[in-house]
């Protein structure tokens, strides 16, 4: 009885041996219970070396969705330029909560020195665009009109 269990263990140990050379995260997917709402497989968590292509519409839609989900904001009166403190009636503490949600969404850190200057959703989006080097929504000032048209056509061709 005992010897058979020992033989079983040794056989399973031999099966485990080739796995040790592989990177530990990819042995088998395990469920990580972050909370009831967000159960992720470990393989799905974006890692440092995974390249996510950030675009302006993607950042904008994510930030506006976050703001609409915030329970102190009326989703109908939310626009890109609606100011948090004056128009939406929020607090500096609420702005901290919003930046915490944005940090969780974009897997990044935003220091309080920067989050203090967030007055409109546009500020948050611009901050994230600066962070991720997204500038497709900005019209270049110094370029001539012909170059602008060519650059736009090239960008359209690249995306489609």
């Amino acid at each position, binding site marked *: 009885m005992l010897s058979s269990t020992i033989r079983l263990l040794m056989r399973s140990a031999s099966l485990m041996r080739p796995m040790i050379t592989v990177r530990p995260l990819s042995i088998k997917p395990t469920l990580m219970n972050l*909370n009831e709402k967000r159960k992720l497989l470990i393989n799905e968590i974006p890692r440092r070396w995974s390249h996510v292509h950030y675009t302006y519409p993607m950042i904008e839609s994510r930030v506006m969705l976050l703001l609409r989900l915030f329970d102190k904001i009326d989703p109908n009166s939310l626009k890109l330029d609606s100011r948090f403190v004056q128009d939406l009636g929020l607090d500096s503490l609420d702005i901290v909560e919003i930046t*915490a949600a944005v940090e969780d969404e974009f897997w990044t850190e935003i220091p309080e020195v920067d989050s203090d200057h967030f007055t409109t959703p546009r500020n948050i989006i611009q901050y994230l665009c600066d962070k991720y080097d997204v500038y497709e929504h900005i019209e270049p000032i110094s370029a001539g009109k012909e170059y602008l048209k060519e650059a736009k056509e090239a960008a359209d061709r690249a995306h489609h």
Partner: protein
Amino acid sequence: MSKNLTYFRVLQLYKRIIKLSHSWQAIDHPSKTYEEQKYIRNEARELFRKNKHVTDPTEIEEHIREGEARIELACHYRNPYPRLVNLPTYSLPPSHNRIRFKSEYEIEHISRPIYLKSYEIKEELSDSEEQSKTNQS
């Protein structure tokens, strides 16, 4: 609001509590995880707003200490609810007719734990007084 160092420290503390509420897992009652997360967030919102008007720097420091103490207690015991205390352990039950010296009030204030600083002291009536009041009303 002047943007000095204590302002940023308070905001940092608030952010820490909110982040804690996002990743909170209730160990004792796993089904109550969402309730406890909501509790942490609402407690932070209410208490920070209640103490918004405090201007004395030492008081603000004490409140920051209170917040940090509550975070550490919650993380250590995995229980976000504060342990309530009624009286300092040596004192007699309160009788409202009794004259108290100023030092007694001071001692009572000092002996309350720091993590209950924002909670108001409610003087509870003893049973006989309560019964007489309900009989009258």
